[in-house]
């Protein structure tokens, strides 16, 4: 099998993310993906609330959004294989997301070594000037594993 083209990788990343049962359960919508960058939106839903007194979305739902978005950014990176897994992910919560508003995560895969991809992400609600959360993570970039699945090394 040939190494997938950038368009194909983008299509794979989009199809893959949309096929994940948990992403469907959270209603995630891929806004854009490609060249190591991804943006995914998640609508407000009362089922995802962490504290009923405030109506603020639970940090865990934000984590799921960040993790998915970071993974998609890695998969779409030209030097990363299209198979990846999270090694670690740190989320900093800047402020509570405003109840009722959609949350958008934007991730950038800014470096890929022979075995690791480095990613950072920002989540915002409708007030894009004040981030809700930021994330930094490392993901696997296992070219040998990808090769066993029929993908050529870039």
């Amino acid at each position, binding site marked *: 099998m040939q190494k997938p083209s950038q368009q194909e990788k983008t299509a794979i990343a989009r199809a893959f993310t949309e096929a994940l049962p*948990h992403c469907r359960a959270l209603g995630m919508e891929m806004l854009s993906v490609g060249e190591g960058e991804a943006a995914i939106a998640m609508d407000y839903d009362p*089922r995802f609330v962490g504290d009923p007194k405030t109506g603020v979305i639970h*940090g865990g739902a934000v984590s799921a959004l960040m993790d*998915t978005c970071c993974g998609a950014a890695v998969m779409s990176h030209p030097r990363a294989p299209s198979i990846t897994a999270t090694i670690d992910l*740190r989320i900093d*919560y800047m402020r509570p997301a405003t109840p009722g508003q959609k949350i958008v995560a934007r991730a950038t895969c800014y470096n890929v070594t022979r075995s690791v991809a480095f990613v950072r992400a920002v989540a915002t609600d409708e007030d894009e000037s004040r981030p809700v959360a930021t994330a930094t993570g490392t993901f696997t970039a296992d070219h040998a594993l990808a090769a066993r699945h029929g993908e050529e090394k870039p």
Partner: protein
Amino acid sequence: MSRRPEPVQVVKERRDAALAALAGSIPYAGFLGIRFERMGDELTALLPYDEKLIGNPVLPALHGGVTAAFLEVTAIVGLAWTHLWEEIESGRIDARHLGAENLPALPRTIDFTVDYLRSGLPRDAYARATITRSGRRYASVRVEAWQDNRARPHAQAVGHFLMPAREGRKAP
């Protein structure tokens, strides 16, 4: 002077009612299907397997976000429980009339870091939180999650939390 100990059933009912009120107050924990089991004051979180928790359907594996959320819920409930325990055992809060409206405010996450140690298998997961520091304003918590084998955790996390201001507490 000795006081007659309370009947065991009364003690259990009070503690179980408080835990049910606390765990039931988090909609997202209910959405994921997270439950808590109690032995004395020690809690174990349970995440029964469900198809909607799957991230990679090819492997299949639990979504990393599910594992992160499970660990974070375990940490928050663990912290809140420690404080609630003191309140109900001292009699300051009556567990029989505890609902979402009169529960103490929940801790708020400052940051949360998850290490993914192994792929999350498509089966039940368990987690326990350890409070490594509990201050007046900030708390640090360590959480570990496992599936079949307690000695082989599939994820661990550390987090920092902002504790709610509590009534009747003296300034330092």
